[in-house]
């Protein structure tokens, strides 16, 4: 079991800055994030985009801001559970919270700070009416073990790197691979596109461009996909598997079931200290809501700072918070 003072759900900018502010108060932090790297949206969606509203930084690339926050947090030795999604939360008799991830890692802390942004990143599911009926019965949103597809017929949809890379990889594994993509051009890396076009010419895979999957059919298990081709019209293609690869999208996910007061996919907090309706659980950054809320990184930093003061009092009810300026006392790491 991983034990810490403040367990932070979400390793985006707000979560990372919490480590620093908590560290100044001699509180240790551990972060959980469903993505394999720290940085949240900044690292996953727009690492190369400049941000212009960080005070004192006229322009900073999102990826560089994450690097800076990691360096700033480093003296306080945060722990990370990455690539795992916080799934359940329980309270022990001693009043600690136990948070377990989807991979079974258990964390214990007296305070939980939810800095989950827009939620955890999950594969985007196409809005096909009966898709849920075929999940794990022919439809999967990611490829865990390519061997599952050996000598099977596979239809992949999408035009990005993962769609192209898996199409190329499965050409030698599956008995039949079809890639369905809505237009002639691809946004994936040029050499993967060339490789896929060559495999298509050799007859090893089938590229169906200017086409989209519009329906699924089967009897308990997926049997075919319905494809709408711009020129040829409707095509029904028999297949064993359909793998839509349309990237990731954040979702609130299991946090919604933790007994918190939720309004429009955000957690209601008291702006005094960003506490939720559950004592000991705070929500900071894009995931919280209150009158006048603005979803800005700089607001998340402010919320994290005030939250840590309150967390200190809740962890050390008998002690007084000794506020120090870093300009006077510097940074004393762990």
């Amino acid at each position, binding site marked *: 079991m991983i034990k810490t003072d403040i367990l932070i759900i979400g390793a985006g900018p707000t979560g990372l800055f919490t480590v620093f502010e908590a560290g100044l108060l001699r509180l240790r932090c551990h972060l959980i994030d469903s993505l394999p790297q720290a940085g949240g949206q900044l690292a996953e*969606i727009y690492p190369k985009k400049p941000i212009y509203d960080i005070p004192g930084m006229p322009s900073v690339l999102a990826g560089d801001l994450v690097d800076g926050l990691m360096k700033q947090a480093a003296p306080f030795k945060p722990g990370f559970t990455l690539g795992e999604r916080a799934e359940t939360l329980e309270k022990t008799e001693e009043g600690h919270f136990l948070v377990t991830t989807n991979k079974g890692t258990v964390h214990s802390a007296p305070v939980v700070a939810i800095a989950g942004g827009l939620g955890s990143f999950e594969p985007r599911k196409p*809005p096909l009416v009966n898709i849920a009926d075929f999940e794990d019965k022919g439809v999967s949103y990611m490829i865990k073990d390519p061997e599952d597809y050996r000598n099977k017929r596979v239809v992949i949809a999408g035009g990005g790197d993962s769609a192209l890379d898996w199409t190329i990889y499965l050409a030698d594994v599956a008995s039949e691979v079809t890639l369905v993509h809505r237009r002639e051009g691809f946004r994936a890396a040029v050499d993967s596109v060339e490789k896929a076009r060559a495999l298509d010419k050799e007859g090893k895979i089938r590229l169906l461009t200017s086409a989209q999957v519009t329906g699924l059919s089967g009897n308990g298990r997926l049997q075919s996909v319905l494809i709408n081709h711009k020129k040829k019209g409707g095509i029904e293609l028999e297949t064993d598997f359909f793998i839509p690869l349309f990237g990731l999208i*954040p979702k609130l996910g299991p946090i919604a079931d933790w007994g918190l007061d939720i309004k429009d996919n955000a957690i209601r907090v008291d702006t005094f200290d960003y506490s939720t309706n559950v004592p000991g659980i705070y929500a900071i950054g894009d995931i919280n809501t209150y009158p006048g809320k603005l979803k800005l990184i700089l607001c998340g930093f402010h919320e994290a700072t005030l939250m840590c003061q309150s967390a200190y009092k809740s962890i050390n009810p008998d002690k007084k918070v000794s506020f120090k300026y870093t300009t006077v006392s510097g940074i004393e790491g762990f």
Partner: protein
Amino acid sequence: MDSVKIKAIDREGVEHTIEAPVDMNLNLMEALKGSGLDVKATCGGMALCSTCHVYILTSHNLPEPSDDEEDMLDSAFLVEDNSRLGCQLRIESDMDGMVVQLAPDGD
């Protein structure tokens, strides 16, 4: 003209008339979201998420989509010839009377 009226059809088929100022450098996504329509705009208008995917139902003369916009439409669903990302369309005075429909939301 200081503002334009745009008709937006939500995912339940309900029509909303929204009024958007043309002098605020606003884009269609911001105008729709600001009027309470269910547009997630996860990436904040950088053509990086496709959650502001709309269909343009009128023949208004709009700038051609950039390569970035086309690339990002690849991660949207049920993309049609009249598909656009709202965040890439600046509100201009010649958009008056335009009708847009929110595209189905991938779950």
